[in-house]
């Protein structure tokens, strides 16, 4: 049995989290990844770099984000107290900006004038276009053609910010295909381009690097819990697509063994229907995609499966390799929330607390509601409200039969 304290010492030198992770890339990218690893390792303990990062988080992103006691919603559920870590209040409206600030600083330090990114819901694309605008970097975003259609508002936002958005027509036309296309761009333009990956997946050092940039969420939440609750919470809940917001919240609590952690994947129409994006919950076999080994939804012959979720940001067949290990060692439990429960949570938080969550974050809310109901009022759950729901108004309106 792995001791939980050992988990904080991963990945190993080759980027492995137990059997997961690694650097499964074509040779042309190996050098770029070695360079990135070197730059990152030299800067992550560099006081000046950290100070610059912290300054940007404070004055540009608006951190710390509040930990908000959703009293009215908690009362309505009638169980545990629910606290929301308000990443939706960050500049650009989601947790993604924490990571893009960090990676854009690295791009600048590496002297790369051009950044590229993949995006699903568009939040990471917006966060990347935002920091690129601020640093004067050329920015190109790859987005699945289907997601371009369901997230028109974010596409226009990115264009206003000066980014070029490329709809990706290949494969299933969603997040995984956008990542394929971004990798193809990178391999072609590797000399002058920095690839800002938006989640804790991809080849080493991305999973570790994105985790480190995002872990500010959990560090704050831990301090805020001690100050506002007077102790650590009983449970943490976050949605998991690639898993960056969940890792950001969970990582600083890993060694707090009394804090339960639950990652909520996209159940789509229900895991039992096969139309979902929940590789961990469904116990998908391990596989290799986008540079790392992880739980991966693929058919018996190894072709990557099409996924389904109401939220574009969770519509991904794999998951960050560190989550895969956390599942195996039992540190975190992973469940799925189905589309209809997610919509219900979206509407309920909006009406009861006046906070409109992103559909991604509403997965965490949907499960927190179930958990809270079976807990006592003197127990506490911290939910990562990873993004705000403005971008999803069109999706929800469409379900209500409205078109704008």
């Amino acid at each position, binding site marked *: 049995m792995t001791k939980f304290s050992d988990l904080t010492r991963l990945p190993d030198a*080759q980027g492995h989290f137990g059997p997961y992770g*690694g*650097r*499964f*890339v*074509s*040779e*042309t*990218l*190996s*050098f*770029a990844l*070695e360079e990135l690893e070197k730059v990152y390792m030299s800067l992550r303990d560099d006081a000046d770099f950290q100070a610059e990062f912290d300054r940007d988080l404070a004055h540009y992103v608006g951190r710390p984000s509040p930990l908000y006691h959703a009293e009215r919603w908690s009362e309505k559920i009638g169980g545990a107290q629910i606290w929301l870590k308000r990443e939706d209040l960050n500049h650009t409206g989601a947790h993604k900006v924490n990571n893009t600030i960090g990676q854009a600083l690295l791009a600048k330090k590496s002297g790369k004038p051009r950044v590229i990114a993949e995006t699903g819901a568009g939040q990471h694309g917006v966060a990347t276009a935002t920091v690129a605008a601020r640093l004067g970097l050329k920015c190109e975003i790859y987005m699945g053609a289907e997601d371009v259609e369901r997230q028109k508002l974010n596409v226009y936002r990115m264009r206003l910010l000066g980014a070029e958005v490329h709809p990706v027509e*290949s*494969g299933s036309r969603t997040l*995984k*295909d956008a990542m*394929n296309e971004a*990798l*193809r761009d990178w*391999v*072609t*333009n*590797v*000399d002058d381009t920095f690839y800002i990956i938006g989640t804790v997946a991809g080849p080493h050092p991305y999973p570790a690097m994105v985790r480190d940039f995002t872990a500010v969420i959990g560090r704050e939440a831990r301090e805020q819990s001690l100050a506002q609750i007077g102790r650590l919470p009983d449970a943490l809940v976050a949605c998991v697509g690639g898993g960056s917001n969940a890792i950001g919240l969970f990582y600083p609590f890993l060694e707090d063994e009394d804090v339960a952690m639950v990652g909520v994947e996209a159940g789509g129409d229900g895991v039992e229907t096969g139309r979902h994006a929940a590789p961990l919950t469904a116990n998908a*076999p*391990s*596989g*290799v*995609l*986008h*540079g790392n*080994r992880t739980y*991966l939804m*693929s058919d*018996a*012959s*190894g*072709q*990557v499966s099409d996924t389904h979720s109401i939220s574009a940001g969770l519509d991904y067949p794999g998951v960050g390799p560190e989550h895969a290990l956390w599942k195996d060692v039992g540190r975190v439990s992973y469940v799925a929330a189905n589309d209809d429960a997610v919509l219900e949570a979206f509407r309920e938080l909006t009406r009861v607390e006046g906070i409109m969550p992103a559909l991604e974050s509403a997965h965490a809310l949907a499960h927190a509601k179930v958990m809270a109901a079976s807990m006592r009022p003197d127990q506490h759950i911290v939910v990562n409200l990873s993004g705000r729901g403005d971008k999803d108004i069109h999706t929800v309106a469409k379900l209500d039969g409205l078109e704008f």
Partner: protein
Amino acid sequence: MTMNRIDQRFAALKAQSRRALIPYITAGDPAPQYTVGFMHACVEAGADVLELGVPFSDPMADGPVIQKACERALKHGTRLADVLDMVASFRETDSTTPVVLMGYLNPIERMGYEAFVRRARDAGVDGVLMVDMPPEEATAIAPLFAEYGLQSIFLLAPTTSSTRAATICAHGEGYLYYVSLKGVTGAASLDVEAVARQLAPLREMTDLPLCVGFGIRDGETAAAVGRVADGVIVGSALVSRIAENAERPEAIPAALKAVLGDMRDALDR
């Protein structure tokens, strides 16, 4: 143990001072029943080694031409197991031409390493080149390859550092696949001068044949690269012919032979 077909073939080419012509086609494109015929057509046109692509849903290192080939093959449900059957069928009438499987790791991960190496050997596969499996990630499968007589073919790129090149040369078998340019398959044109410069230091590190792929489109580029390399690998130029003729597959063998015949002549001139 007998010498691997790849080593035999390169030894014979060396004795004749000839360059290897290595075509790539995607198995199952445009439909599975044609692939074995295409393989034989390539050999008749002068191919020395065959690279047979295993179709994959997410071919991250490939340009649009081979992406679409994968899509056509997958539409007909071409699986890794089917590709191995094609090799076995090819072997019924050709026991000498080396066959290298090329593709991405996930289908092999799903089949399982043990099952894969056993079935690949039984089918008559000689080498395996997985684009997303550099030597560092091949440590688990390498001993199985050795046990089952399969050779690991690795890539080298213009961006490969000399330290990495030494590692790759140490782990590589059969031949080394030098990627001529930064980009995906089917990308623009290669710079023969640059390739020559980059191959020179590799010669100091290894005795393995150095074959060059990416950007070889006709007899002229093949001949130019053949002057500095031990072999040329041609993929997208062939797969484009398959795509153009996807609706009349009976015309494809002649189309493949026309491209390869020009290259063979140019290389041997």
